């Protein structure tokens, strides 16, 4: 198969570029998904674009969580105690 190199002026590349996230998220209908897959098989630039976008999403999904600060935990406990004492809040 011949690789084509018309990016960034190729209309098909631009159309694909606007739908890449939906492609990654499995939100395209089957005919459109098939077109995207076909295009990706032929266009290296779009494959690289897809890979970098997928990696960006992966990094977000695997980013760590900060622990809960002790001061916040105590603040929430005080807030709950106050709320539960307050007859207006029942």
């Amino acid at each position, binding site marked *: 198969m011949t690789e084509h*190199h018309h*990016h*960034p002026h190729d209309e098909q590349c*631009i159309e694909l*570029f*606007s739908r*890449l*996230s*939906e492609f990654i*998220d499995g*939100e395209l209908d089957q005919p459109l998904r098939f077109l995207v897959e076909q295009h990706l098989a032929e266009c*290296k*630039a779009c*494959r*690289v*674009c897809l*890979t*970098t*976008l*997928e*990696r*960006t*999403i*992966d*990094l*977000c*999904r*695997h*980013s*760590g*969580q*900060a*622990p*809960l*600060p002790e*001061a*916040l*935990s105590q*603040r*929430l*406990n005080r*807030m*709950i105690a106050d*709320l*539960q004492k307050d007859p207006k*809040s*029942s």
Partner: protein
Amino acid sequence: MTGPQNFQKKSDSDKELVEAIQSGERGLFPDLVQRYERALYNFGIRMCGDPTDAEDLVQDTFLNVFKYLKSFRRETKFKNWLYRIAASVCIKKRRRSKFAPERELSLDQFLPLDEADVERVTPRWADAPLEQVLNDELEQQLQNGILKLPEKYRSVLVLRDIEGFSTEETAQILNLTPSNVKVRLHRARLYLRDHLKHYFKDD
């Protein structure tokens, strides 16, 4: 096929606890707080950037939950309702701040300007195993990139790609249409990808 609403109702792991509190067992409210305090704090950090603002966001969110839980009718999962409150607290807070002014991101700004800018080789940061790439410095870069996003894009990216909500759920939380969520998410991801590309350019 199961519709999104049915799925949300079936998989609401907070249902029993919420119902118990709604029926008067207020002593169980701390259990609900404990279940989400850390997640909400991290949501606040992603959205506000500042730990003090994130702490305020957690407190204000739970205050509102306590106040309005009786009127929660379980038309959605409790978690979605909780994040809807948190997002609205956050938006109010952001309106009072000058940080990251609102602007539109257009798709065109992410297209390569000319042939020389088109990448035809996968860069190492996108190709290497994730554990070789992800470290504290990159986490900080990721956080910086997220904070530079205009708020309307940032909230969608954080809910979808960090908190793991679906397109439908994110739309419900932010009161947007699903297609609006998709458009904003794609632009936010492209923005973040460009931020990371810039960080890795000398790699």
